[in-house]
């Protein structure tokens, strides 16, 4: 089976800086990492390969420095990678991003399964996965916490929902986005690191992808960020202390009644 994983390079979470003027994230000169959710997707893809054989490819969009992120997943055992890299792609919102990725998939041609991490931890929209499925006209299974079965042409997955879970079956190809509960990503291997050392992903430009120029980058993005801000923290809670547990419980019950939450 050929499994393609969408991977995004994101700023290292400890070092996020917001440009006060534009309200967008500073991406230049800050340490980066592979979006952690995408590592769960990579791990799941590698497991499918171990079970059925085949190939794991990674697809990413971003500036040339994304090659570092691609080398990181190559060291985990990913076979190959493609990078969609063009100045014209810059400033894309999720719609323009998913359109561009879809063009990348058209260029890749054949594939059996697409894995994505549910959200990227920088923008945190979780929109690119489902939008990509729409562009490709493929089934989408989101919030997947467990793959029950996967084989050529078929997948059965457990989705995580607010009130428990759902078991979904689908034909393949499909787009599957995974949550962090799904697995524990493997660490890089020695052979992987040696391969990664000299690895350079093939890059595809806007011209290579035969895109509609009106639908990519800033120009193709109907949404834009007006301002980014840190919300005010919620007020501190009240700690009921003193007395034994029965006394504290009755104090607590009194408070709840006062608030009119229940009688």
């Amino acid at each position, binding site marked *: 089976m050929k499994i393609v994983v969408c991977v995004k390079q994101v700023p290292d979470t400890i070092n996020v800086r917001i440009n006060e003027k534009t309200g967008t994230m500073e991406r230049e000169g800050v340490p980066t990492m592979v979006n952690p959710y995408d590592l769960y997707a990579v791990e799941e893809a590698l497991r499918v390969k171990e079970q059925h054989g085949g190939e794991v490819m990674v697809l990413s969009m971003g500036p040339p420095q994304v090659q570092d992120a691609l080398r990181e997943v190559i060291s985990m055992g990913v076979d190959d990678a493609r990078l969609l890299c063009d100045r014209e792609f810059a400033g894309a919102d999720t719609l323009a991003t998913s359109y561009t990725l879809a063009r990348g998939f058209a260029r890749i041609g054949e594939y059996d399964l697409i894995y994505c991490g549910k959200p990227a931890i920088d923008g945190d929209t979780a929109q690119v996965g489902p939008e990509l499925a729409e562009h490709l006209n493929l089934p989408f299974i989101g919030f997947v916490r467990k793959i029950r079965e996967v084989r050529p042409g078929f997948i059965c997955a457990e989705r995580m929902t607010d009130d428990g879970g759902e078991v979904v079956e689908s034909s393949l190809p499909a787009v599957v986005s995974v949550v962090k509960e799904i697995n524990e990503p493997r*660490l890089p291997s020695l052979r992987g690191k040696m391969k990664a050392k000299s690895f350079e992903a093939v890059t595809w430009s806007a011209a290579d992808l035969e895109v509609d120029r009106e639908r990519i980058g800033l120009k193709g993005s109907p949404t834009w960020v007006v301002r980014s801000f840190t919300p005010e923290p919620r007020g501190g809670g009240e700690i009921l202390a003193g007395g034994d547990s029965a006394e504290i419980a009755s104090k607590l019950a009194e408070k709840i009644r006062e608030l009119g939450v229940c009688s």
Partner: protein
Amino acid sequence: MDYLLSEQQIFIRDTAREIAQKKILPVRAELDEQEEFPWDIIKELAAADLFAIFVPEAYGGLDAGILDVCLAMEEISKACGGVAVSYASSALGAFPILLYGSEEQKQKYLPDIASGKKLAAFGLTEAGAGSDASGIQTTALPDGDHYVLNGTKQWITNGGEAEIYTVIAMTNKARGIRGASALIVEKGTPGFSFGKKEKKLGIRSSSTRELIFEDCRIPKENLIGKEGQGFLAAMKTLDKSRPGIGAQALGIAQGAYEEALRYSRERVQFGKPISSFQAIQHMLADMATKIEAARALIYSVARYMDTNPKDMSVESAMAKLYASDIAMEVTVDAVQIMGGYGYMREYPTEKYMRDAKITQIYEGTNQIQRNVIALGLIKRSAGKGK
């Protein structure tokens, strides 16, 4: 200190370190307490290709050297000496095949060892044959196309967990140690069973069992090298493996020292961190100096051995002897610096001390190492006089 490691060696060190710190450290206390064989971690080490480093490329390995194995051992041991010896014993079991095995034996056994799919183990010691290997009682008597094994091997690391055992047994008792041969025995061979798992002072996550042979028939093609080469194969195997045990001791010492150093900076007595007292400072200085000396010795011996010198028994023994002796000293001092806290199982320091002790005992006691060194030096001196 920068030891001018190659890029591959840095990869190996960092890969082992990442597994040690992320996967082994969080579970080491539990593994020790439960005396549980660390299969999950063995699988991690295998997936990271760490079992491949002591196997040639032709058999699915990465063809790295003794120094590379030492780097991996040091990092794993910094987290847990028990896990480290389980890893190293697979190399120990593979060395006789690597050194004296036939092409067919190498093709058959090494790829699975390199991938970590199967563990290996080495069976030399017996109840009556410890330092004196000539006391081996286990026999492997020829019978048609087979050898028939009878006897019991004692304290075999990875016993019961490994699939591939290289065992030293007497094919001709009348010839003494020249009648000893090395043989490959696979787990599951009829007549081959295991004794109970031993309870130990340290390295408790590793598995130590008896190998029991009762009319165990193995095909003659499982003989490693020639009949009578068993003692030589065992000695050459130990020459190759000793720096790895030195590196285990080094890692244990380093781990204990780091705990003591961190603690001494946090622990306040008489209104100051205890690291500000000269009594503690001098202990830390001595510990760090010994560790660095051991590291320098191990790395240089391992590098020298990777040039395939004809005779390196002396240097190999020195590396193991020095590192294990200082590991014992350093871990005892680490516990001392931490006082009552160091003695408690809640902290990892007492475990380092328990784990360190075995490194002075196995792969040849340190008394035997001194014999090897002295005899080797005398032989070299006599050779020059000719």
